[in-house]
Structure formats: C-alpha cells, structure tokens
C-alpha cells in the first residue's frame, strides 16, 4: 500500500496498533445485505454494503458509518 499524501504519516497511522475491531455480522436491511457492527442496545453501525445492486449504494440511509436500528435487520448467514 502506498499512501500519497502531504500529511505526516505518523499522524495518519497514529493508534493503528491499538485499534480494536468490534466483531461484525451480516444482516439484511430491507432486503439489502449489509455488514454491521453492534454499537449499543438496539443499534448498529453500517461497516459495508454487501449488495450487488448498485442502486443500493445511492441510498442515503445506508452508507458506511450510518447508524441503523437493529429491529430493521434480519440475521443472515
């Protein structure tokens, strides 16, 4: 990986070692397969869309970092 940035790399990579990755799981939200991370009771954060329908990627409620209510999700896989 080559980072091409005028920013100091120490600043960019600061905390990389201590970074903890919360476990993620695959769910369906309105039929869209999404990878989410549980953030709190009844709430999760979208990590990545797993859909193959490009139009799902234009949805304003499903983007990386969006908070989703878990009652909208159904567990898959």
């Amino acid at each position, binding site marked *: 990986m080559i980072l091409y940035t005028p*920013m100091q*790399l120490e600043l960019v990579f600061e905390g990389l070692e201590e970074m903890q990755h919360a476990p993620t799981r695959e769910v369906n939200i309105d*039929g869209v397969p999404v990878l989410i991370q549980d953030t709190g009771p009844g709430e999760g954060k979208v990590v990545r869309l797993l859909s193959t329908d490009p139009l799902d*990627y234009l*949805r304003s409620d499903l983007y990386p970092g969006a908070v989703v209510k878990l009652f909208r999700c159904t567990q898959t896989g």
Partner: protein
Amino acid sequence: MSGDQNIWGHEGEYPCTPPENPPEEPNTPPAREPGHPGASPAPQRVQGRTKESMESIKELGASPVPEVKSNIHCLTIVGQIEGHLVLPPQNKTTKYEHLIPQLVALEQSPEVEGVLVVLNTVGGDVEAGLAIAEMIASLSKPTVSIVLGGGHSIGVPIAVAARYSFIAETASMTIHPIRLNGLVIGVPQTYEYLDKMQDRVVRFVTQHSRISEASFRDLMFRTGELARDIGTVLIGREAVEKGLIDEVGGVGQAVNKLKSMIEEWKLRNGVPVQ
C-alpha cells in the same frame, strides 16, 4: 423480511405466479404511491425499497427506479482516501468500496444526468485514488469537479478526471513525489518500483488535463517550495495557469457548467424519453 426472500426465490423458481397475483393486485397501486396518504407532497428522494420494487417487478414487470429530486448527483471526496487498510478513527476517510458501486449506479441511473465531484482531500492510497479517478473519467455522463480547500496528492488525479474542473480561489493542490511506506528494501528495484507507481499518477494527470508531463514532473520535484518535502503547492489560479485545472470558480459556476454540459450531452445523445 421473509417476504423478501420469497420474492427473490420466486423470481427464479416460479417464472409466473398467477395464483398469487390476484389477491395482491389491490395492494399494488397504492404501494407505488408514498406509503401513507398523509405523506408530504414535497419532492422526496424515495429509496428503492426492495420489497416494493420486487413487488412491482412481479406485478408490472418493471422495476421502479428511485425518484431523485435533482438530476445532478454530488459526490464528495473528503479526508484521506482509504485504501486496503482501514485507517485509525482520527482520520476522516473516503471509502472506495462504497464510492465505486455508487459510480456504477450513477452511470446506470436514468435520473442522474450529471455528476459534481466536490473535493477537499489530503490524498491517500494510490490504488484507491486512481480507481476512483478512472471511474470518474470513464463515466459517459457529464462530470464537473470542484476543488475546495484542498485537493492534494492523489486528489489531483481525481480532480482532473472530471470532464471539466474548477478550483476555488483559495483552494490548494500539493504535488509531490510518492514515497514508500513500511519496510523499504534498499535495492535499485525499490526505486524502479516507486518510479513505476509514480508514472501511473503522472500519466493519468497528463492524459486528463492540459499540463505536459515535463511541467508536471517539474512541479513534483521542485525544491525550496515546501518546508518538509520537495514539490509544489498550487493555489487557485496557479493550478489553472499550469493547465492542471480548467477554471477558477465556485459552486455556482460549477453547477452552471454542469447544467450546460448536460444540455449538450442530451442534444448529442437524443433526449431520453422520460
């Protein structure tokens, strides 16, 4: 939710489902309207709800495309362009795995007629940046980019990838050599590899803007301009003078330009039947 899965299944398993259609038919016309009668009449970006769209495919044989209130889609590229490594959370990042399918959707969606790329980025991963730049450059729809604040390093190829580019009067673009991160083995091959990676960026920029390779390389390796690095910072008008960016301007000019490009594009391709 199980309904969704059934519908997915039915699509393949039961090409025609006449016994199931009649009871559902009365529900279908209201389903195409916004959910409740009390829904606001204001134009609203209706999300392509899969359940409804699947029902519509079943009932009407057509997939409804999401209604959009604007024919221009604004793509914002901010912070670090994240590559194959998730960056620590203090970085604001643009994620290529989301942007790339989004660009596919923009190319495909009949509602979107033009794309406005707004940049305020400090650069980032070479691969991811070039991937986004190539996607923008290969869109068949009119594209306009505008650099606000900064469009540094790998932001430069993304800015020039659009058909027409703008830069704000105060925005800056840093052009500097690529450096290797991580373990660097001190052998001549390392330099050759680095040079190859750099050539990818230089080639893309020179192919998509008016700047010549010699003058871009000159900017890249200039000494005495940057305090901590070699290279150049171009501010607003300077980027236009060097031929990197097409025009100095703000959002108003960028949107107007995009609108006029859309008109031209429609004339050239014949107005699509809406």
